[in-house]
């Protein structure tokens, strides 16, 4: 029986071994069509990169546009005057620091009127007419700005930029460029009592209408401009007719609360203003790990447990630049660019030859991120089932990340505590596998730059809590322990589905713009 069966093998081998037969014409037509289709797909893939780059640039453009619009709104919107229904942009300094007013945007007529004020004030500094001379403290008590507050006899006051103020029994204001509320040292009727400089408050602003100058009420920035209620303040008596006209045009009414707010806002530190940007350069040593799930779609011998046993995470890191956009005192948005680097070492193992996707027989290695085929030069024609011994191996992944996170911060003095949560898109820039194949004394190092089964993009979540210490007005040191966890596997069609996680201690330098 066995002899007969052996004959059967020979019978078929000799009978069919040299058999040849031409397939039908439609086979070539189908091949032709498939090749055309693949060419189109290849072209589409080629332009996919450009599409992504275009989208990125578009997002950047939109971001810059929002920033620009926001910037313009801050500079112009709040400083518009509504007196008598005519908008006059006299601009009170808002966005600049330390109360330095912006350059005024005035028409030539308005400039002439302002010049009138200068002249009028200077001319009308008649002793006894003004109590401003009593109100202005000594130079050493003046606030750290060029602005001062004047009161007339009745207790009403106006505020102006101080260019040159001389206190010599009279107030001489040489070049006030615009009217503006600004904190100043104020003396009560009792000249002996000089109240030190205090920031503006809602309450204090409200007191203006009562012609009462508070002594102990500090001023601060009103949070909601709409809450400010300022009744019209009559022009001081000492002003000339021309100056009064300008005073009226400036219209310190409830509608001009923006002027008051603009001035008050200048007191606020710039970094606490909504709409401000800051940049943080950071570096984070990471402790990386992953969650593996068996991928049943692929019937390969390796599994999650086996990979977990052979792979070990080495030192990994993340670095990059964050851009923060402050929404208000508490909340801000964070985005930027990160570069992550994950290194995984693999224990020595035996690799077996298998047919790759193209039908070539190569040695296959299964990784947590995908798989790779190796063909050592000393064994370039293996047959299925052949094996080689890989004595050491390393596996590197590089990603470019674009995070978007919301941050909540609590500030006390120079120290802020921040809580952050968000998500990020990670774009694969490099997936590299390097191994040393044993070949007697002279081992061969094989490097594979294209790990198969590795997705080009994955999305992860971010969460962290950290602290920020203000070193100078614009520079801070930040420390933010951050956890990153993948929402989706980084691979497809491999023996496992891999969800990378990491925990890093990000430290950086923050510069406020």
């Amino acid at each position, binding site marked *: 029986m066995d002899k007969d069966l052996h004959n059967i093998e020979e*019978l*078929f081998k000799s009978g*069919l071994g040299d058999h040849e037969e031409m397939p*039908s014409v439609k*086979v070539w037509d189908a*091949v032709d069509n498939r*090749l055309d289709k693949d060419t189109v797909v290849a072209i589409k893939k080629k332009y996919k990169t450009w599409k992504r780059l275009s989208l990125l640039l578009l997002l950047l453009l939109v971001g810059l546009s929002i920033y620009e619009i926001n910037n313009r709104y801050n500079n112009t919107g709040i400083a518009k005057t509504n007196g008598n229904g005519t908008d006059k942009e006299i601009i009170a300094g808002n966005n600049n620091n330390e109360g330095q007013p912006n350059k005024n945007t005035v028409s030539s007529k308005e400039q002439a009127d302002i010049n009138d004020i200068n002249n009028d004030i200077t001319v009308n500094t008649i002793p006894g007419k003004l109590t401003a001379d009593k109100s202005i403290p000594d130079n050493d008590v003046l606030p750290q700005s060029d602005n001062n507050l004047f009161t007339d006899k009745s207790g009403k006051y106006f505020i102006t930029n101080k260019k040159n103020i001389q206190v010599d029994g009279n107030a001489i204001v040489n070049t006030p460029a615009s009217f503006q509320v600004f904190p100043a040292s104020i003396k009560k009727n009792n000249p002996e009592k000089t109240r030190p400089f205090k920031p503006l408050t809602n309450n204090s602003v409200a007191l203006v209408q009562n012609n009462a100058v508070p002594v102990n009420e500090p001023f601060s920035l009103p949070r909601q401009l709409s809450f400010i209620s300022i009744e019209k303040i009559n022009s001081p008596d000492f002003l000339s007719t021309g100056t009064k006209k300008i005073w009226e045009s400036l219209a310190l009414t409830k509608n001009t609360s923006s002027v008051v707010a603009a001035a008050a806002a200048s007191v606020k530190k710039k970094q606490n203003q909504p709409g401000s940007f800051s940049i943080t350069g950071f570096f984070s040593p990471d402790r990386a790990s992953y969650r593996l799930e068996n991928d049943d779609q692929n019937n390969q011998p390796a599994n999650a447990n086996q990979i977990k046993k052979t792979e070990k995470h080495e030192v990994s890191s993340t670095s990059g630049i964050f851009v923060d956009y402050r929404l208000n005192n508490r909340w801000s948005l964070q985005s930027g660019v990160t570069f992550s680097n994950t290194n995984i070492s693999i224990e020595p193992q035996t690799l077996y030859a298998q*047919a790759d996707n*193209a039908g070539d027989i190569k040695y296959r290695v299964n990784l947590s991120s995908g798989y790779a085929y190796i063909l050592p030069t000393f064994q370039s024609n293996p047959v*299925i089932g052949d094996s080689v011994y890989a004595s050491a191996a390393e596996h590197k992944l590089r990603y470019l990340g674009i995070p978007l996170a919301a941050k909540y911060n609590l500030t006390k003095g120079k120290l802020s505590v921040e809580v952050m949560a968000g998500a990020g898109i990670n774009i694969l820039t490099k997936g590299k596998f390097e191994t040393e194949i044993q070949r007697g004394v002279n081992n061969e190092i094989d490097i594979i730059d294209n790990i198969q089964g590795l997705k080009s993009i994955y999305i992860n979540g971010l969460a962290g809590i950290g602290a920020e210490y203000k070193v100078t007005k614009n520079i801070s040191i930040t420390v933010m322990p951050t956890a990153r966890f993948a929402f989706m596997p980084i691979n497809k069609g491999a023996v496992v589905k891999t969800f990378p996680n990491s925990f890093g201690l990000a430290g950086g330098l923050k510069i406020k713009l």
Partner: protein
Amino acid sequence: MLVTQTDILEQFNHLIQKCMEGNRLSQNQLYKLFAPKMFAVCLRYAKNREEAEEIVQEGFVQVFKSLKNFRYQGSFEGWIRKIMVYCAIQQYRGKSKMHPVVNIEKAEVEEADNDDAMAQLSKKELLKMVQALPPAYRMVFNLYVFEGMKHREIAELLHISEGTSKSNFFDAKVILQKAVSNSLKVAKQNY
């Protein structure tokens, strides 16, 4: 003018180069050159002609896409053949694993002389017998007999145990033996 082997090799390398560049005319020439042999290979792995045409079509697409990986080491025909076999295996994997149960216990085997049988059985008849095998048996039989693979390698390739591979091969041979015997009987009766 005498055409040397070197000239033929150079022409062939030039043809491959053109195919790599995507020249459709050259690809057609290459197809015509190897299609008859490769189709015969695919016919053995398939259950019918239509299925064989699907395999050979997929195989040649893979050949043209993978030409850049060919390193001019070893036979080009062998390289193409490997791709065809791999495509056949892929198609076998993609098909349902529910195969008809074959009762081989009742198979009556009659002794037959190879030369005699060859004389009486045409290639088409032999091919039909192979195609009539259950897919799992057909795969193991083809890989063992025509590709010269060992049971260990077949087991790894088809993700079955070595024992299953041997068992399938044995059963395949029994079925074929019976088919050959029956065919010879019919031939004798007709004669």
